[in-house]
């Protein structure tokens, strides 16, 4: 059968249209599904730690000394080349703040002095329903299947919509070039460039090499990390036994960092 020019152009046009419309429809109906449909085996370490749903527990009773906090924060910031920038343009992935700031809705004047004066760790909550992912115009921030909310620093355009969207103040923007503010650059983790947003990644780079998050590792049992989807995991067992709080649960973001009280 001979195909004349007219038929060929028609067919080519229709195919293109179907391709474009199909892609648009997929994006609209199942956002991110196309991007996620990549070969599973690309560049994975055999020792990689995997989970259906990663979660973190912070045992506030075990954080008794300033050194414990500092050890966790230093482990995180040194390992990830987080710059130390003084003032209100700072970058932080893991830090401490008072109870009334971390849990503003639980605050009242008569809570025990010990809790009032105790610092609490703050970090990205790796929400199940993350507003930052919803608002990002380039999918530079996205949620992985295992629940980790990730950042692609190479795609981020620096619009800072995610910072407006995050109700936990977990995100920092590189107002300056961060490199001069890093005391010792760790060559095993990339430094960031000017003008992009960054935050805690639940140490996805360490998980990929079979290691638990750095802060958890140095916390001497004050922090736990595990698969919330697994009934028998330690995180599930502890959550069954101890009372826990999440930050701002009324916002519907479903945070996955739990504070054991």
């Amino acid at each position: 059968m001979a195909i004349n020019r007219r038929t060929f152009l028609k067919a080519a046009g229709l195919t293109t249209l179907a391709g474009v419309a199909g892609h648009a429809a997929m994006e609209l109906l199942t956002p991110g599904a196309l991007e996620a449909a990549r070969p599973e085996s690309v560049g994975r370490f055999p020792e990689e730690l995997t989970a259906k749903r990663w979660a973190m527990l912070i045992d506030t009773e075990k954080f008794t000394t300033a050194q414990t906090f500092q050890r966790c924060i230093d482990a995180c910031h040194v390992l990830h080349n987080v710059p130390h920038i003084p003032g209100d343009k700072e970058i932080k992935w893991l830090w401490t703040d008072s109870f009334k700031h971390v849990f503003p809705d639980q605050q009242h004047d008569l809570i025990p002095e010990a809790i009032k004066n105790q610092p609490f760790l703050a970090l990205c909550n790796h929400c199940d329903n993350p507003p930052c992912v919803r608002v990002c115009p380039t999918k530079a921030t996205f949620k992985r299947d295992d629940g980790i909310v990730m950042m692609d620093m190479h795609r981020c355009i620096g619009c800072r919509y995610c910072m407006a969207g995050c109700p936990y103040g977990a995100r920092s923007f590189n107002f300056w070039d961060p490199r001069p503010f890093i005391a010792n650059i760790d060559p095993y983790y990339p430094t960031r460039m000017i003008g992009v947003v960054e935050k805690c990644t639940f140490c996805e780079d360490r998980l990929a090499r079979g290691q638990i998050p750095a802060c958890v590792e140095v916390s001497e049992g004050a922090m736990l990390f595990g698969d919330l989807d697994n009934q028998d995991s330690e995180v599930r067992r502890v959550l069954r036994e101890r009372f826990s709080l999440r930050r701002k649960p009324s916002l519907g973001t479903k945070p996955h960092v739990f504070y054991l009280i």
Partner: protein
Amino acid sequence: MLEKALQGNKAYWGWIFTLLVAIGIGFGFYVVQLQQGLGVTGLNRDVSWGLYIGQLTYMVGIAASAVMLVLPYYLHNYKAFGKLVIFGEFLAVSAVIVCLLFVVVDLGQPQRLMNVVLHPTPNSVLFWDMVVLNGYLFLNIIIGWAVLHAVKKGVRPASWLKILIYVSIPWAVSIHTVTAFLYAGLPGRYFWHDSLLAASFLTGAFAAGPALLLLILMIVQKVSDLKIPKEATQTLTKIITYAWAINLFMLLLKIFSAYYSQYPAKMATFDYLFGGVGGEQMMPWMWNFVFLSVVSLVLLVIPSTRNNPITMTIALVMVVFAGWIDKGLSLVIGGFIPNPFKVHTEYWPTIPEFFITVGVYAVGLLILTILYKVALAVQRENAS
């Protein structure tokens, strides 16, 4: 037709030169910002949007307000606006360009701008804002230019233009609605999280936009042979009066629901803005806003002061300025204060930020001047 912008007297070229100088200074500071980062601005970890995004919000309103001329003229055949519609559309064109430039100067990585197109993300309101702003820009360029061309040739505008004009009317509403959705859809930002936000954006825009247009046209009238029909001024000022009254009414609704319910998070930003709780930087601006709003509303409501050229001009300047404090300044800053930790971190623009802002506005004014110059020349030729 563009060549008509190349003929002008000394004052015209002086004005163009002034704008070019302002653009040059702004560009110089932008190069500094590009090299050193947004650290040269007053923005910080807590107040991560400021003057730039405020101007985007205000100018989207100015752009949308062209519909207050387009709708009566094209849908109701209101002849008094006939000669003015083109100026409304060209104001919209330059306002949208200003908006897009403010987005660009606010980006940390502007060279990656096209990622928004390369990785289209329908769940992001910013993606849709890009779509509607660009769409509105092209609609107004095409409509304005084609209508002007028809006037030049002394023929009726092509019939397909009607369809674009009808599309442009709801499209104008959409640009400010989507811009409001940027803010209104964020959990935990209580000052923004308000279903009325888009509606109050529109009413504020339909007051400040026509007010700005009338003021610009009064200047144009002084330096050219444009005659603003008296009836057009009277109708526009009535539109401004109603829109402004509804806008202030909506603000009172917000204040009622915050303070009668005693909802702490809803009151917090008002406490900061008007009460100086946690920092007094915004307070003088806010009370100026109250003063300007009330006085301008009184001047506009009373027919004798609304129709008196002097008091009317004062009222219009007040509306434009009050609208700017409301949307260009306090809306964006207020949304970030207090921050998610209930801590008050203040923000104030720096000198580079200020001059970049002036530079962007100068680009808008340059485009506006050129477009108006062409429109006036064509209208003059057509009349003679």
